[in-house]
């Protein structure tokens, strides 16, 4: 036990003095959060602009109230030069150009350059036209639709970004620390030296593990601290404390991946490359940076076997979807099971020495 504390303390001091390590484990992922948080701050709220070319009766005949209602999602601007208006649509300045032909036909010009914006503007203009058609009948509508968002109205990209990026940060520090510590200790003959001291293998492995778990908790605290700042506006929901056991079991799982990589790697550089090769593709395929909702089916299938995907989803569940123990427990169990399995394999491959 004494050996474990001594090794943990030495490792912690050694790491804390390493600026590169501090940067990559704490600051680098945080930078991503700050950056993505700013980039996506406005969210994906559908707002389009349409250029009205010449007189368009459905628009011109709107009441002020209708106009204000429409203004929330669609801005209408006048540009009576058709060629000029089409140019603006083509270069993406505006989302569509609406004109009324002599026969009373409405024509909406859009650009296929951005599929989402094209679909949005078509939907909005279509809604305006349908509304006008309905009004023209002079009868109350047979069916009306009211929409209601299931999340808190404050839902913002930060609710998605925080769990995803935090998961990625934990995967990075977990995999790297386990892979690098053992390889560096082996290369620097510290393992050999420890083998000559009355220290158990358990203490030698437990010390870097404990340090990494501590780091994961610090990362979590920093992430949640920054994301809940009013500027970013993360609202923690439900039993968000479940993020702590999730983070710890996730960290253990990624360390066991790193441990496995570290058992094969002979040099620190090889270990680092191996860890990066594992973590970065895993992060993309797990939807840590971007939601996988629009990803091809095979990516979504691959994500199902990625521990990071399950960690991110479970973290979203407990951090921003208001879910509880039921959502977290299966993931915690799965992550721990994977950790035990990978650790068992790594221990079989463990070497005190290079040769």
């Amino acid at each position, binding site marked *: 036990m004494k050996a474990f504390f001594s090794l943990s303390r030495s490792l912690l001091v050694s790491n804390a*003095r390493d600026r590169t390590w501090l940067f990559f484990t704490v600051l680098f992922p945080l930078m991503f959060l700050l950056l993505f948080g700013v980039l996506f701050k406005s969210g994906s709220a559908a707002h389009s602009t349409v250029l009205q070319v010449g007189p368009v009766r459905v628009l011109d005949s709107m009441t002020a109230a209708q106009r204000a209602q429409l203004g929330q999602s669609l801005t209408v601007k006048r540009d009576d030069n058709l060629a000029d208006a089409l140019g603006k649509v083509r270069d993406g300045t505006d989302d569509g150009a609406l004109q009324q032909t002599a026969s009373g036909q409405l024509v909406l010009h859009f650009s296929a350059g951005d599929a989402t914006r094209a679909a949005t503007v078509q939907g909005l203009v279509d809604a305006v036209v349908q509304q006008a058609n309905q009004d023209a009948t002079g009868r109350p509508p047979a069916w009306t639709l009211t929409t209601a968002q299931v999340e808190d109205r404050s839902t913002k990209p930060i609710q998605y970004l925080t769990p995803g990026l935090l998961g990625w940060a934990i995967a990075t520090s977990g995999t790297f620390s386990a892979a690098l510590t053992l390889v560096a200790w082996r290369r620097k003959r*510290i393992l050999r030296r420890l083998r000559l001291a009355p220290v158990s293998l358990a203490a030698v492995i437990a010390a870097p593990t404990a340090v990494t778990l501590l780091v994961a908790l610090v990362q979590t605290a920093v992430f949640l601290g920054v994301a809940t700042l009013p500027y970013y506006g993360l609202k923690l929901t439900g039993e968000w404390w479940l993020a702590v056991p999730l983070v710890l079991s996730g960290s253990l799982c990624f360390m066991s991946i790193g441990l496995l990589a570290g058992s094969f790697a002979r040099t620190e550089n090889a270990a680092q490359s191996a860890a990066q090769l594992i973590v970065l593709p895993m992060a993309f395929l797990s939807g840590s940076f971007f939601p996988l909702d629009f990803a091809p089916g095979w990516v979504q299938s691959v994500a199902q076997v990625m521990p990071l995907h399950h960690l991110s989803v479970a973290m979203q569940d407990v951090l921003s979807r208001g879910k509880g123990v039921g959502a977290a427990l299966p993931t915690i169990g799965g992550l721990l099971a994977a950790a035990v399995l990978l650790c068992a394999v790594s221990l079989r491959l463990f070497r005190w020495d290079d040769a």
Partner: protein
Amino acid sequence: MTGDDEAAITADGLRKRYGAVQAVDGVSLTVRRGEFFGLLGPNGAGKTTTLEILEGLREPDEGTATLLGERPWPRNPRLLPRIGVQLQASAFFERLTAREQLAAFASLYGVGTRRAEEMLARVGLTEFAGTQAEKLSGGQAQRLSIACALVHEPELVFLDEPTTGLDPQARRNLWDLLREINADGRTVVLTTHYLDEAEILCDRVAVMDHGRLLRTGPPATLIRELDAPTRISVPSGALSAAEASAALDEEVEVSDDGVSLVLATRSPAPVLALLGERGALHGLQARGGTLEDVFLHLTGRAYRE
């Protein structure tokens, strides 16, 4: 077997093969308690493998090793606290200061930090206690690594080339430290690149080549056994080479390089008498055989090629 009578190290018929290379080929040796023992040999002679087998880092293919009455293989937790090993490449935790390194190793052995402080003073590093290990000079790093090997007061100490890469002054300082360690009653096993060092420090040395021990004994005995001629030299001029050859027995080899007249002989008395008669004793130097000669004789090659 009672405590102090048993040998510090007994090795019997150690063999270890790596692929086609027979690294250690039947090594048997005994090191007595309190002895300062040197293991000498050129690179690739099998010294390191022999040490690693003794330390318990490798399993021999054949033969047995016993240290302080215990088997070193498999990893033996009863033996580990009783031996201290200084590895060739200093194994330090990154970015820890000298004091922190020693404290870390001390607590791995369950030794208090006070002992770590004492050890730091003992190797003369108190003023560098706050320096990170990477920033210590070669000699300081070696002393720290020896301190780490000694912090738990082991009975048996292995030192693998502790003075390699040090300047002459640092080497001499380290010799004093090594002598003190031995004077404390600890058994010391040393490998070294320097035969003069082994000659000065070791009670006994074993000369090793091609995985075998060629000869074991006190350096002085090995040198005497060699029966190398004594080389007597005086400044050139006092006596010419021709005169010396004429006056002395044929057995004496005479040469003069313009700086010194050198007379090599196995019976120095007549040579010294002649030089005395001619008043040529001023500036005389006499040199007997050295371990270097023993080594050359045993292996047919110079120690460092």
